[in-house]
Each structure stands twice: as C-alpha cells, then as structure tokens.
C-alpha cells in the first residue's frame, strides 16, 4: 500500500487530484474525496450526494470499460472549483466509449429485453449540470462533469 500516499494530491487551493488503482471498489476513494471537497467549499448536502454518485459512476465506467479492468492502469480524477461550480474530470487510458448504451427502460429490463446494466451514463446525465463524454486527451479518454453548488 506504499502508493497510497500518492493517491490524493492537493494541487492548489482550488484543485485536487485523485489517482486510483484500476479496481472496482476504489471509486469510493474518489467519491469520498469529492464529497469532502464539495463540503469544504459549501455545497448543500443533496448536491454532495448527487456529486458522489456521478463521480462513482464515472470512475466505474473508467475502470470497467475505459481501462478494461487492466490491473496496471490508473484512473485520474481531477476536481477544480471556480465560481460556485465544481468541475470534475475522470481520465482513463482507453480509447473512448465505443457505443453508448441505449436509454434505460425499466419495463424492458424487467422483461429481459434490455440488459440490467448500462445505468451509469444515465445517472451521470441526470445528476450533473453538464457532462461531456468522449473527450480524448494525449493520455486517453476523459469524461468532464460540471456541477453547481446548488442544483
């Protein structure tokens, strides 16, 4: 666990970076870090909860789909606060989203006509004020979310 000391870095007063091992479950570190940061800067509690779910889902997608569960890959989460808006980018080492899941339909899911999975992107879209998927950087794929202090 020697690498743990490098997991969370405070880059400046308004920016925090979290580097996660590519393993399901570790999204909770990013989730709790984002929640702590949001509370420090004054987010109301229901927005903190929205943020936590959005960050967790973006990290899960990065671990499972972006980095394709590769144990040597990392997920980098960068949070920056400015003008009552928290910007969160979640970077993986993948090549972007090959195919967006269809809009979830609970009736079809119950009837086994649609996979029960594929809810992460839907939840992110519902919970944040703005989201951009499929942004490519020199290091890989990035999802960028903006969330306002008060929804």
């Amino acid at each position, binding site marked *: 666990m020697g690498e743990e000391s490098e997991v969370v870095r405070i880059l400046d007063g308004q920016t925090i970076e979290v580097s996660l091992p590519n*393993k*399901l*479950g*570790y*999204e*909770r570190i990013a*989730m709790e870090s984002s929640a702590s940061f949001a509370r420090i800067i004054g987010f109301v509690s*229901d927005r903190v*909860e*929205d943020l936590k*779910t959005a960050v*967790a*889902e973006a990290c*899960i997608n990065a671990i499972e789909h972006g980095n394709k569960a590769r144990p040597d890959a990392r997920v980098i989460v960068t949070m920056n606060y400015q003008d009552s808006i928290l910007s969160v980018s979640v970077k993986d080492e993948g090549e972007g989203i090959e195919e967006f899941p269809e809009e*979830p*339909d*609970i*009736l079809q*899911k*119950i*009837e*086994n006509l649609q*996979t*029960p*999975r594929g*809810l*992460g992107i*839907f*939840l992110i879209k*519902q919970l944040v004020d703005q989201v951009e998927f499929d942004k490519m950087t020199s290091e890989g794929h990035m999802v960028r979310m903006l969330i306002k202090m008060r929804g």
Partner: protein
Amino acid sequence: MKQEIEIKVESHGVVTLFDIQGDVTVFSEPFLNEAYKNANDEGATKLLLKFEKSAYINSGGIAVLIQLLAKTKQNSQQIGITGLSEHFKKIFHMVGITKFAEIHNTVEEALKNLS
C-alpha cells in the same frame, strides 16, 4: 476489500424481510440471489428489502436489484423497499424501480402496506 454483504431474513406474518447490511454493488449479486432463492423455495409471496441508510448503492447494485425485481414479477410476488436515504429514493425513482416496488419510509409502514 470488503465486498460481502449480510442479509438477515426475517418473517413478519406474510412478509419476508431482507435486512441488507452493507453496500449494494455488483458484488452483492450472489448474496441477494441466495436469499431470494431460499425465500422463494419457502413460498414467499411478499418481500420487503430493507437497506442501510448509509449504504453505498451504485449502478451495478441497481442492476442486481432489477434482476431481483424481474424474478419477483415472474413469480407474482409483491415487493417493497425501505431504509433508503432521500438521495437513493430519488435515484430509484429516476431509474423506474418504483414502478415495480413501492418505497416506504419505515419498516412498520411497509409491513402495514404489504400485509
């Protein structure tokens, strides 16, 4: 990393209560499946899922719950949910789970409505 959940199963008249202790994620699937199989084998007709207020529930866990709802529908069982935080009540509404399982504020309210 802890991935297990504990499900305590209790009978309250006609209602079988699953007291789910722990986070609900994709790793919860075998635990929920086993609890459901046992309850179904014993002839359960009404199920109540009780979550911990502080539970972390993610999309993988919601998918597992949707699969459970599908089984209860196939077996004509009624299902209720309680113990959720306000945030996860909102999430369950968003996803549409409330079309198949009513959310109750307390165990007592749920038992009264299901009985």
